[in-house]
């Protein structure tokens, strides 16, 4: 069996990598990817605690699902903001933007 602390250390390492990505990246999308990594680390923790401490109550998994929901909402809004900001800065090149008409 894999002890609980191993999962927690894995999650901690993942979280720290996420922190680094979120704070050190210059690019907004890169920052967002770092945040996603941090959220995933939290999920590993939640599920590891569920498995090791209370597998009968589904609380850990439930929380993980809610975290996934929040992460999806956050990614959707965050990326929309990034696109909007990008468009604001580049409004000059309208012809170029429509170049291939999708």
């Amino acid at each position, binding site marked *: 069996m894999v002890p609980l602390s191993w999962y927690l*250390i894995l999650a901690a390492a993942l979280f720290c990598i996420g922190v*680094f990505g979120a704070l*050190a990246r210059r690019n907004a999308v890169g920052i967002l990817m770092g945040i996603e990594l941090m959220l995933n680390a939290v999920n590993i923790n939640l599920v590891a605690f569920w498995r090791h401490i209370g*597998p009968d109550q589904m609380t850990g998994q439930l929380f993980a699902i809610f975290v996934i929901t929040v*992460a999806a909402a956050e990614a959707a809004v965050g*990326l929309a903001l990034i*696109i909007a900001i990008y468009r604001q800065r580049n409004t000059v090149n309208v012809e170029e933007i429509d170049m291939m008409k999708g």
Partner: protein
Amino acid sequence: MQQAIFIILALLTLGAALMTVITRNLLRAALWLVATFFGIAAIFILLRAEFLAVAQILVYVGAISTLIIFAIMLSRGIMDPDQVRFNGQWGVVGGFAALLFVVLAVIVTRVPWPAAAGGAPVGDAPADAIARLGAAFVGPYAIPFEVASVLLVVAMIGAIIIARERE
């Protein structure tokens, strides 16, 4: 056996995560992120949380990664090959992250977790875990459940307003 598999999976996941934050090309970084998500799904399987593993792949790989890749492709400047990866303070941040990890690791190994200190989990994962999840959504967690729906719709409406092209 399980421990060996865990170590391999953990190293692969962490390696992919590291590549995500240091790869210069953002699209490749997004692909490394996808690899990380798969690794985490495998970790969930190891924890007997099969539904969460499949939800992870469905939402993170299927939806969020696609969203990220679309956003990358929609903003061309991001693809610029000779742009700077990190901001000026990346050295400080790296040191901070490493320190944070050491602190967390020490805390995690020192805390006497109930029953799990020896390693064996209490009891086994219930066989009807998925049905229990479903019952919990409409039972004790009814309010978060509805709030999740509201949150999703609000996020969708907000994002549509923000991202739309104005005529």
